[in-house]
């Protein structure tokens, strides 16, 4: 198969020797990581470890100084911009919940739907049964059916986080990057979010950046700890949290 020959790796996401520096500060330093298709990976690490910068590189917001970033084995992400990367099937949830506050919950999802995004088709867009069903389905998943006509700005913090995850689902990406999904959530909401992500992981690859160790433990997936822009430790949550260096720089004694 020719298609397979061109693939350099079987990984969904492949980072190798990535470097980024801002004004001499090495935000990402020889970062290498592989995420397999269908995997869910949790990324932990102290502030400034480069977690968000890594997300910026994958989504095209920041260009690395050197190194390879491959998506689905063939696509070089460093050559594409945000829009192209989004169209490829990489969705991102920001650290600070970013929803369109002055629009309704269902309009937020409508905007996120994975459809033709060109100007002309959008201008003459007609509401369709298929869109409505997709939106209903996502609303059900993120438990916001009752709030569909509310303005997104009037939602609680936790609901906004879910809406943003819902927008990711509506985008129907192959890979979801989720930055601190449970920041500021109550324990119940945190638990529900873990369940939600596990459901999503049934058919999508997920990368979660999170500080909340209880939440990471609940996810029960492979964990990577970043420190000073490179991988410090990788393994199960028990292996990583037993690692001397991880305890020293991140978890504390």
């Amino acid at each position, binding site marked *: 198969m020719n298609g397979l020959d061109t693939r350099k790796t079987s990984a969904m996401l492949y980072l190798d020797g990535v470097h980024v520096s801002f004004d001499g500060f090495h935000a990402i330093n020889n970062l290498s990581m592989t995420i397999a298709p269908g995997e869910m990976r949790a990324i932990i690490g102290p502030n400034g470890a480069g977690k968000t910068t890594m997300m910026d590189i994958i*989504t095209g917001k920041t260009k690395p100084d050197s190194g390879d970033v491959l998506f689905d084995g063939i696509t070089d992400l460093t050559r594409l911009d945000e829009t192209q990367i989004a169209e490829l099937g990489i969705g991102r949830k920001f650290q600070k919940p*970013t929803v369109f506050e002055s629009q309704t919950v269902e309009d937020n999802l409508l905007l996120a739907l994975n459809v033709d995004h060109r100007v002309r088709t959008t201008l003459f867009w007609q509401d369709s049964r298929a869109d409505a069903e997709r939106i209903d389905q996502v609303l059900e998943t993120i438990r916001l059916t009752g709030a569909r006509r509310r303005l997104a700005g009037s939602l609680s913090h936790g609901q906004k986080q879910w809406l943003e995850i819902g927008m990711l689902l509506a985008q129907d990406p192959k890979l979801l990057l989720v930055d601190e999904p449970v920041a500021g959530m109550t324990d119940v909401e945190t638990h529900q979010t873990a369940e939600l992500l596990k459901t999503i992981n049934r058919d999508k690859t997920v990368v979660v950046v999170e500080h909340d160790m209880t939440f990471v433990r609940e996810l029960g997936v492979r964990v990577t700890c970043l420190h000073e822009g490179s991988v410090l430790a990788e393994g199960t949550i028990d292996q990583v949290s037993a690692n001397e260096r991880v305890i020293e720089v991140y978890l504390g004694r």
Partner: protein
Amino acid sequence: MTSHFLTRSLDRSATIFLAIVAAVGVLLPLFNLLLPDTSMLHVPTYLMTLFGKYVCYAVLALSIDLIWGYCGILSLGHGAFFALGGYAMGMYLMRQIGTRGVYADPVLPDFMVFLNWKSLPWYWQGFDMFWFAALMVVLVPGLLAFCFGWLAFRSRVTGVYLSIITQAMTYALLLGFFRNDFGFGGNNGLTDFKDILGFNVQAEGTRAALFALSCLALAISFLICRAVVGSKLGKVLIAIRDAESRTRFLGYRVESYKLFVFTLSACIAGVAGALYVPQVGIINPGEFAPGNSIEAVIWVAVGGRGTLIGAALGAIVVNYAKTVFTSGVLAPYWLFMLGALFVLVTLLLPKGIIGTWNAWWESRKATGISEDADSAAFEDGAVKPHMAE
């Protein structure tokens, strides 16, 4: 539920707005033409022309609101597109003068004869035909906006930086049009118009028709803007305004959307300028002055950004106030009053007149709904917390 009420009430206010524009557009010219001077309801021609000018400003304000209110693009140079539309119309009107000019040259406008030019420059060709001039009224501002926007939006120039370069754009045009060898009458601009489509520009009937046409342009521009902001594209524009990079990560090519709406807006501004010129009888480089564009933004802010109707209303209210105050003892203080108005609106009515009214109306409706919902819930024995919003 709230959103349904919102759209319904907005649709109703849009209908009311259009009905008022239509009524004014028909009745004012009729009162001017048919009623005798002695009648209480007679509208003097000067007043109708004055209001015609305001209506053109209202169209300009709509075009600014479309990009600023809905897409967050603050253009401080929109007067340039207005003036270019005006110049295109002015060139047609100049070519209609023919041998009635001071130098009686059948082809060359007076200022070209005065400058000793022997033939018409290439860019004046075709302007003797109305259809061509009408096309240029839309095309020239549109093309400039397209080129300007293509460069600016692709380089992701946003916010205050974009505002500054739009100011620079209109200022550069101001300096260019001031030059005699630029070929647009220099300092004096284009004036002394005689005919439009064979009708005398000064005649009462023509003025009435121009007024009615300005109202028609306002209605059509309003409908176009409403259709754009009411479409899914309108939702994308608001998304860009509120969270540009989020919109990019959803897979929208933000620069294409901005370019589309910016170009459309410039075309509408061009039409406004074209209707303005035959009514005021002159177009000169002063129309490119950066201050004019800023003033137009103030109209939109006063009326209510992102409401369309507010923009039109703001243009008329502020300009009426300007006419009243600049013709009295307060004339020297007008600019201070305009500045104070802007500051006060920003501090006290950040949503503008219509925006504040809408918010008040919605909150009144919402309390009504939640009372209804509470009583309904009480009867059902079920509480719906979401409804209480």
